[in-house]
């Protein structure tokens, strides 16, 4: 196996007494799509800022293409495309001007950028909007432009912090499609998310983070196989009765989680389990059989849900 593009060992970041990142290790290989999955405050964004060479670390080592981002900030940043959590497009400029000037920040020639703009406007599906001020764009368009902007310098690695947070479902799907194309073109993606569907769609491999630490690492399907059952039965009995019936339900399955609004029962065969519950005359008000997801993995590892 070739040397990883990104190599992180014992990375720790403290803000005063608060430990945001508590000694994490991971590698990202070339062409891989790597995810940091965890709830808000898990330390994902802090990790991203350190990778992006815009934040210093308290201890540990970080190497991006064999360079320490703290020592070689400008050089490391020349390899990266950065898509921050909040769009920070230049509000005084138009769509194409935003792409142009960002390329200039990298020192790229005018001629090169002019050609690149056409390619990127097409990629971001913003050809019609080229001369529009960015303030007038929708949330999804702004996000696509921010991603396109990050690609002006033809980066080796694209860092995406919560790429679809705050977007409506349709805009998210368009964005996923664009990111998937990049992945197919061989761009190395590193992204943070607290959406398990996003992690499942986009990541080849991911780490689950909580309270600044890595809880598990693997492919989405591998993690599900390792930490959860094949299927999940979700049943609701109304908020008061959920607790009441829980002991009885617990005897029927391998593992169970009682949430405030529903009970999750882990099993290999959801329909059969539901049948069993009906025969016991427990009569849930609603029931749903679904396959296990990363949400269940997170719940298993931390005892909490991803989005609270």
């Amino acid at each position: 196996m070739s040397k990883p593009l990104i190599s992180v060992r014992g990375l720790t970041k403290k803000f005063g007494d608060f430990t945001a990142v508590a000694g994490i290790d991971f590698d990202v290989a070339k062409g891989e799509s790597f995810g940091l999955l965890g709830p808000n405050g898990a330390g994902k964004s802090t990790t991203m800022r350190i990778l992006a060479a815009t934040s210093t670390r308290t201890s540990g080592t970080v190497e991006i293409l064999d360079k320490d981002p703290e020592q070689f900030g400008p050089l490391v940043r020349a390899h990266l495309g950065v898509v921050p959590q909040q769009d920070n497009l230049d509000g005084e400029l138009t769509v194409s001007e935003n792409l142009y000037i960002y390329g200039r920040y990298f020192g790229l020639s005018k001629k090169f950028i002019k050609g690149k703009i056409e390619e990127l406007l097409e990629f971001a599906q913003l050809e019609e909007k080229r001369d529009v001020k960015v303030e007038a764009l929708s949330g999804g368009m702004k996000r696509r432009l921010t991603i396109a902007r990050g690609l002006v310098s033809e980066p080796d690695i694209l860092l995406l912090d919560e790429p679809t947070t705050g977007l409506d479902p349709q805009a998210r799907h368009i964005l996923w499609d664009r990111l998937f194309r990049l992945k197919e073109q061989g761009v190395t993606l590193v992204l943070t998310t607290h959406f398990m569907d996003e992690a499942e769609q986009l990541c080849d491999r991911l780490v689950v983070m909580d309270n600044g630490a890595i809880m598990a690492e693997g492919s989405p399907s591998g993690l599900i196989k390792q930490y959860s059952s094949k299927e999940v039965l979700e049943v609701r009995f109304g908020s008061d009765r959920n607790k009441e019936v829980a002991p009885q339900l617990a005897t029927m399955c391998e593992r169970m989680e009682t949430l405030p609004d529903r009970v999750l029962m882990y099993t290999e065969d959801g329909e059969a389990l539901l049948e069993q519950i009906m025969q016991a005359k427990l009569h849930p008000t609603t029931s749903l059989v679904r396959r296990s997801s990363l949400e269940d993995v997170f719940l298993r590892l931390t005892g909490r849900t991803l989005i609270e």
Partner: protein
Amino acid sequence: MKTAVQIAESRKSSAMYAGRPWVLLERGWIAFRSTNWVPVVTGFVEPVLFLLAFGYGMGNLVGDVTTGSKTIDYTLFIAPGLLANSAMNGAIYDSTWNVFWKLNESKLYKTMLSTPLGPLDIALGEITWALIRGLVYSLGFLTVVTALGLTPSFWAILAIPAASLVAFGFASFGMAITSFFKTYQQMGFINIVLLPMTLFSGSLYPISVYPDWLEKLIMALPLWHGIEMVRAFWFGDLNSGVLIHIATGLFVTSRRLRALFLR
């Protein structure tokens, strides 16, 4: 065609400086082309209005002014002082309010620092942009003053580089101070300092009218040096003093940008 990485590798790597401050000017120009001209025009008109109101209004009551060994017409006396003021206004407008907005609201500098640009690129670029604005203001003012027949000789043109120096000094200083402010209320302090400095720093009358201690205090303020310098060029004498502000401002600004965004 050089790639971004080759460009970054081709120079000695420094955390502070990528050697590309001019891209800030390019960005400033693109943004300026499309924004409206009203704030620019008002910044230029203000000293002209002062000149008309005080020069022709008050000037008729005051008559001549004695400064040092010279006795000159009042309007002629205030013109160079107002030129220095004009340069200061232009530079301050860009280096304080505009910088504050880019620092705290639009987060433009943060975006720039996620590219290979360093804090010194930004400080140099923005201060130069503010300097250009100050230069444009003072050129405009000089044009008006010349049209009114108030320039004593062709050498008054030398007051322009002197005014640029004032602009550069205030731009550096303004940007350094702004980097410490977090709220719009704090930004109000800038006006609290600027207005009295404008009124009392000897642009409208010689500071020899003050008691000795007050004269010393005014002489400690940067604008007085600027006004004296511009006036000296205007009438053909020489003196310096603004260079120190430039050096301090550049140093503090780039250090502060690093502290704010590259922590």
